């Protein structure tokens, strides 16, 4: 278990960093922002899920991911509104985005029939 966690940590750290670097060197920022919602955690996690648990497990994870992606769209739009319209500091917006993402994702997961 510890070994698997270490592999997840390394793989996740590398893929997230790679997408973050791609987003950093691109202009305009509206285009670079696409990489802020790159499938970095998904690629690292699903790669291991296929290897350890099989395709059916990965398919179920992919289905749940839809609620997470919808929540990410909501919190990205909220971030844009708060930064451009209300001029909130980005650090505060970042914290709020995590909370909003968690609430929306869990809310969608609870209401969508499985």
């Amino acid at each position, binding site marked *: 278990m510890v070994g698997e966690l270490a592999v997840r940590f390394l793989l996740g750290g590398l893929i997230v960093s790679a997408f973050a670097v791609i987003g950093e060197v691109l*202009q305009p920022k509206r285009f670079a922002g696409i*990489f802020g919602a790159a499938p970095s955690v998904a690629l690292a996690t699903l790669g291991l899920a*296929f290897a350890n648990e099989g395709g059916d497990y990965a398919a179920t994870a*992919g289905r749940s991911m839809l609620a997470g992606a919808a929540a990410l769209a909501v919190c990205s739009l909220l971030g844009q509104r708060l930064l451009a319209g209300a001029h909130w500091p*980005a650090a505060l917006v970042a914290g709020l985005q995590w909370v909003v993402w968690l609430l929306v994702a869990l809310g969608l997961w609870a209401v969508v029939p499985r």
Partner: protein
Amino acid sequence: MSVLARIQVEPEKLGQTSWKAYAARFLLGGAITAATGLIAHGFGVGVGGLFLAFPAILPASATLVEKHSGKRAAADDCLGAVAGSLGLLAFGSVVWWLAAQAPAWLVLLVATVAWAVVSVVLWYLLESLLTRRADRPSSQVAHLANSRERSDSQQREKRGSDDDVSTAARGVVDGGPAADCASGAPGGRGTTGTAGAGDSTERGAAPGAGHDTA
């Protein structure tokens, strides 16, 4: 300028970021991926799957963009992430649809391509819409300027044709050849109106170019 031509790669930006920021991203990305595994282990794959779309990069990058390029650029970064998030819906759909019947590498490849295509197409549509909206006030100014030019030109033509009619009438009364010149006079004046319209179009286009704050 075309929307796609605005995309640029600026490798020198990498030098502006401290090693601490890179380390923080690596640690955050690694921690979230490890936590996703633990959540799936503890609460089941249904809940764990939600975290495949956890905002691991966006909040950190928005904070960094605000520091280097300002709040407006950070807001633009978030708007781009909306397109990326909708691309993640395509990624998740492909995994859900294909995972049980295709090899892992093919599923992840097709899903990543689907994410990239959907995200870029949505960004293109969004960018085109915002560009059109930014150009609209200047287009209205150009349209008003053109209308004014046309109206001035018509008034000049009307005045000119009145003069020609009276000259022609005098010619008919006098029995001279002046009536043959009636159609020739206003033509030269209309050219001024066309040049003016061109000027106003150029004036109108100028503010639109500066809309991209990123």
